[in-house]
């Protein structure tokens, strides 16, 4: 069970959040064309390691959080608002 530190609500259990997928893909401009939207909707880096992802705090402030989490250890090293630039993940994270 993940414990996510919401910047507005503090450390909360995973059950309060809804996962919304990869936050490193950003929606292209409307006129970007089919290839760009295919990439956006379907194609993922899917890293084994640090992953930037969306969590919506539905059981709390209902804010959308950008979370940097390790996909093997599940360690979370940063949480922020959608437009925050999160600090780069540490090197050599434990797996």
């Amino acid at each position: 069970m993940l414990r996510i530190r919401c910047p507005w609500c503090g450390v909360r259990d995973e059950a309060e959040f809804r996962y919304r997928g990869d936050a490193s893909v950003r929606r292209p401009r409307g006129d970007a064309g089919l290839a760009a939207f295919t990439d956006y909707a379907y194609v993922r880096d899917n890293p084994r390691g640090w992953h930037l992802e969306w969590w919506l705090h539905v059981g709390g402030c209902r804010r959308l959080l950008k979370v940097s989490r390790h996909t093997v250890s599940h360690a979370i090293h940063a949480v922020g608002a959608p437009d925050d630039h999160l600090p780069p993940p540490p090197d050599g994270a434990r797996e």
Partner: protein
Amino acid sequence: MLTTRPIGSIAGRGSSGRYSILRLFREGLNGQRGWSHAWRKATPRPRYKVVIVGGGGHGLATAFYLAAEYGIGDVAVLERGPLGLGNVGRNTTLIRSNYFRPENVRFYDHSLRLWEQLERTLNFNAMVSQRGTLNLFHTEAQRDLFTRRANGMRLQSVDAEALDRGAVRSLLPLIDLDNGRYPVLGGFLQPRGGTVRHDAVAWGYARAASAAGADIVEHCEVTGIRQVAGRVTGVETTQGVIGADIVCLAVAGHSSRLAAMAGLRLPIETHVLQAFVTESVKPLLDVVVTYGAGHFYISQSDKGGLVFGGAIDGYNSYGQRGTLTMAEEVAAAGVTMMPGLARLRIVRQWGGVMDMTMDGSPIVSRTPVAGLIINGGWCYGGFKAIPAGGMTTAHLIAHGTPHPLAAHLDLDRFADGRTCDERGLGPFPYAH
């Protein structure tokens, strides 16, 4: 429609000899000393016609069918660790072909037919047990959906039966039909569905592929994919560079990472699906049953343990372990469905990492890199697909064109808008 013909048995020519009850008796008199390696522990040669990355169910089955069906024995299967410890050794062992989409019904039913002759094909008893798979429904909407699926299956001469509550009860003496929340209205049974001893599938295919000439190389991790002018030429491994005309990735759970070595990004996210097993008890459950009102399905193994699972954990993960949240939800659904399970004790919980595709269907496809083929994206349905996945991948390798049964599983379907979304959940793997 492709017909299934028995595959010529080529197993038994290898060093491990032929398995039979007489042999078992003979070896018994001799202290079981006469057995030898089930598969050759090969060291890789510098070059093969085909290199298959991944010594799991699909990789090993592909190697076997390449040799047995398509006459290509110049094959190496490279496995990072010991073979068969990924998803083929971590799943809940179910086989079935009850699907909504006609092309999926065809594909998985072909697989089922290959399962039905597996022990004779491989001379290895993987204990294919067609005890039936039962899906319970709790609402009229679910009944309609399952009716549609069953009718679609029947159109293709695949078995599907609608059961009323009485029939459900007689199959499942422990069920609580009238639980206070979502009473069971009935069920749909596929009698030919069932279970297979999962480890034996890997071992059986490995032994048969090895006997047919394929090299199975364990502890050989692929670290790079070599290309010249957009065409694959081989792989770099921890045991050196191995040349190949065709490289096939069969590493579901890790497809993205291997594809990235060839510069490709895939419509895949990796997620964890957990499984559980209970203590061994005397026969309690003679059918595979799926709850319709929550994440829970369960069957009983020959050894007596009840094997069960639920849904994926719901966020990207490569951690081969289960989480607590989903475990609690699964257990609650189990006790709601069958209150009599309450005192049964769960011995182990584990997880496997799945290639979850963006439409919930697998990928058996060529790629933009010539000579690089992907068998992956099996989501949480890869085990049952092993025979058909191996067969159709072997076809694609041998002929360069998709097997008709797997033509809908190409990579281009996403860009073209021909996705194959069984449940209509859209490009949100965490929701599948």
